[in-house]
């Protein structure tokens, strides 16, 4: 299988605080990778670097073979233009903890905005594709509703539809169920599971350990800005090598 995301020696700091201290990770096409770890371990920051919502100071990230966000010019590292970065971001789809739907647009138009403005589809094509995705996530009946008229779980399903409708090469989920009422978690996990079964490449930052164990091909445990341990879920959850991971799993009730 070809490597889709290749993260090489990634360093990221906020002023003097180093939050990523040399992370190496590769994700192959069709793979589902879950990132677990306590808060402050850098897992969300790592995810946000992959679609350049966070700048990073050292290392490289390659998506589909091309380095994103920065280039070498006369031996200096310079940030790509915003226009170019926008194109690179379109290769990844992102689902946020707080959904972040556009509050002034209907569920349908939340999806068609990107389809028309980024992918350049006509309005009619965009509506057709958006409706297809809304049906897929079970939200077609709510297509004319504004986000404020939807429950958290419904908003998150629309947000997933909005992201995958852009036909990204990889989907990134940032604690997609953490802001939901417990009874709404399952509907969102079902949607994510469906995408995984379709062969979508995904990176998930999650606190849902059982779900991570069930859907992932690879689980990554982060601690203090580094990858402490990684491997297939059976091994990582079944026989964790690092004492910190054992501690973390015990505290998570696994």
């Amino acid at each position, binding site marked *: 299988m070809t490597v889709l995301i290749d993260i090489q020696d990634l360093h990221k700091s906020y002023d003097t605080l180093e939050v990523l201290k040399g992370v190496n990770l590769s994700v192959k096409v069709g793979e589902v990778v879950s990132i677990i770890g306590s808060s402050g371990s850098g897992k969300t920051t790592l995810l946000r670097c992959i679609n350049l*919502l966070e700048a990073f100071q050292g290392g490289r990230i390659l998506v589909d073979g091309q380095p994103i966000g920065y280039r070498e010019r006369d031996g200096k590292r310079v940030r790509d233009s*915003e*226009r170019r970065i*926008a194109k690179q*971001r379109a290769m990844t789809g992102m689902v946020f903890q707080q959904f972040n739907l*556009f509050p002034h647009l209907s569920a349908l138009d939340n999806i068609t905005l990107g389809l028309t403005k*980024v992918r350049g589809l006509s309005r009619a094509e965009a509506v057709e594709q958006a409706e297809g995705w809304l049906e897929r996530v079970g939200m077609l009946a709510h297509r004319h509703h504004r986000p*404020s008229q939807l429950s958290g779980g419904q908003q998150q399903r629309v947000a997933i539809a909005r992201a995958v409708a852009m036909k990204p090469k990889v989907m990134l989920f940032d604690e997609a169920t953490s802001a939901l009422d417990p009874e709404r978690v399952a509907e969102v996990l079902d949607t994510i599971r469906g995408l995984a079964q379709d062969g979508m490449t995904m990176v998930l930052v999650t606190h849902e350990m059982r779900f991570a164990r069930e859907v992932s091909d690879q689980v990554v445990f982060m601690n203090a800005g580094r990858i402490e341990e990684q491997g297939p879920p059976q091994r990582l959850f079944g026989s964790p090598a690092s004492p910190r991971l054992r501690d973390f799993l015990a505290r998570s009730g696994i």
Partner: protein
Amino acid sequence: MNYTFNFTPVWQNWPLLLEGLALGLGLAVLSIAIGSIAGLVLAFCATGKHPALRALAFGYVSIVRNLPILVIVLFIFFGLPQLGLAFDKSTSFVLALSLYAAAYMTEVFRAGLLGVPPGISEAGQAIGLTPLSIKYYVVLPVMLRNAMPAFANNFVSLFKDTSLAAAIAVPELTFYAQKINSESFRVLEVWSVTAALYIATCYLISLLLRGLESRLRL
């Protein structure tokens, strides 16, 4: 108290009062339109990353907001011609009120922008929208909705400020009221009818803008 009301001179001049009211409304709408466009640009400057543009926006707001509108009106109409910049009465007033409105609208839109959740801009980035598209399709419409109540307040306030145009003899409502007053000496009648016209108009404007606000509510 045995005052005898006599509204006859007021009703005889009723068309003039309405004409004045219409002119005042026209001046207000034009000035608020110009002021809002300038305010929008300044609000983006004030909340942007560029330090010089931020300083420009804050400098403008702090100077203009600390000036009485009447001083701006008089400065433009009587002061600028000394420098060879002369405008007619109405143009001078529109210029003054636009400059004044721009400062207030900058604050209205700046507060609106600060109320736009950063997450929705990130969502726009994540689907690959360019920074300009995000501002236009996402930030602007959400900000305008946030800003509506404050915008409506300022609209009414700025409309009332058109009465100051009487100071440079722009023939709006207050100007005609003064005129009728000095010709008829029906002081109480003239000013109570004028007050009623201002109240009714402001109330209608608020009602209209509140209707718009509730239709746009998120």
